[in-house]
C-alpha cells in the first residue's frame, strides 16, 4: 500500500498501525536525537568470540585501551546487546551460531567486522571451512589487520558512534541474515 501522507496514515491492521505510529514518533527530531545520542554512547557488544581476534578485542576493553570509556560494555546475552563484533575468522560451523545470535539481538543492531579473516579470509582466504560475514550481515565498519590493534577497535567504535549520531543507520524490521549454509 502506498501512503501519500509520508507513511503515517493509520489504516488496516492495528498492530501494523501502532508500529507505524511509534516509528513516526521515534523519527521526530528531538526524540531521534536523544535516541541516537543514547545509542551511540551505549554500544554493548555481545559476548561472542568467533576467533583469535578476541584476544585483541579483550585487550581493547582492558586497562590500557579501556573501551568502556565510550560506554562500550561487553555484555552477557544477545538479548541485552546491540552490537555484534565478528572477531576474526567465521567458520561455517560458527556462522550458524552467529546468525542465531544476530537474530536474537533486538533492533537497532550493528555489526563490526574485526580482522582480515572476517573481511576476506586473510591468510585463510582459500580455506574450505570459512565464510565471509559481510555476505550474511549488513556491516557498519570494517577493521583491517591481523589482529587489528586495540586502537583500531577504538577507531571503529568512534566511527560507529559518528554514524549513529548522524542517523545514518537503518532500523531494520528484524531483518534476517542473508544467505544459506
Amino acid at each position: 500500500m502506498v501512503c501519500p501522507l509520508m507513511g503515517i496514515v493509520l489504516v488496516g491492521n492495528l498492530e501494523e498501525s501502532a508500529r507505524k505510529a511509534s516509528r513516526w514518533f521515534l523519527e521526530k527530531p528531538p526524540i531521534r536525537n536523544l535516541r541516537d545520542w543514547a545509542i551511540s554512547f551505549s554500544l554493548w557488544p555481545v559476548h561472542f568470540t568467533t576467533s583469535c581476534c578476541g584476544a585483541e578485542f579483550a585487550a581493547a576493553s582492558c586497562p590500557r585501551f579501556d573501551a568502556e570509556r565510550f560506554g562500550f560494555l561487553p555484555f552477557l546475552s544477545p538479548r541485552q546487546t546491540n552490537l555484534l563484533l565478528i572477531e576474526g575468522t567465521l567458520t561455517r560451523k560458527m556462522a550458524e551460531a552467529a546468525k542465531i545470535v544476530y537474530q536474537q539481538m533486538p533492533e537497532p543492531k550493528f555489526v563490526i567486522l574485526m580482522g582480515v579473516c572476517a573481511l576476506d579470509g586473510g591468510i585463510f582466504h582459500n580455506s574450505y571451512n570459512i565464510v565471509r560475514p559481510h555476505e550474511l550481515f549488513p556491516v557498519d565498519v570494517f577493521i583491517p589487520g591481523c589482529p587489528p590493534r586495540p586502537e583500531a577497535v577504538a577507531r571503529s567504535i568512534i566511527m560507529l558512534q559518528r554514524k549513529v549520531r548522524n542517523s545514518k543507520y537503518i532500523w531494520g524490521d528484524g531483518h534476517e541474515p542473508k544467505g544459506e549454509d
Partner: protein
Amino acid sequence: MNLREKIEEKLKDIATSIEYPRPDLIVIAVNRDRIMEAAQRIVELGFDHLASVEGVDLPKENAIEVIYHAESYEEELRNTIVELKTRVARDDPKLQSLINVWPNALYLERETWDMLGVVFEGHPELKRLLLPPWWDDIPPLRKDYKVKVEGIIVGTK
C-alpha cells in the same frame, strides 16, 4: 643396552623396517594387522603417551599412511620420539583403534577419521570433530580434495 638395541630386540619380529632418520626419531613400520601388538610393545618400553596420530594420503601408492608418534614422560626416554607407521588401503581405510593402548588417542584418532576418513575399529565415538556435522564432501586432507590456489598476477586495462 641402549634404546636402539632395545627397540630392535623387542620389535624385530614384527617390524617391516626400523630407521633412524634423525638423532631424536625412531621410525618403525609395521603391517596394519600387527599395529596393536607393536603398540603394546612400545608401551612396554615406556613410551606411555601419544604426541600425535596423523594420516598421510599417498594417492600414487593408493594408500594412506597412518603415523603414531609416541613419547614418554620418563627422564631417560623423553628425548626420543618413536614413530610407528602403517599403511592402509585408500579405498577401504580400516585400522584397529589404539585407544586401549594409548588413551589419549581418543581425540587424535577421531580427528584422523574426520580429516582423512580412516576408520578406527573399536573407537567408541567416530563422529565429526573439527568439520561441521553436515560435511558430506570427501575428507579434506586427502590429496584429491583441492583448495583454490591463486596466481600472483592481475591484469588491468
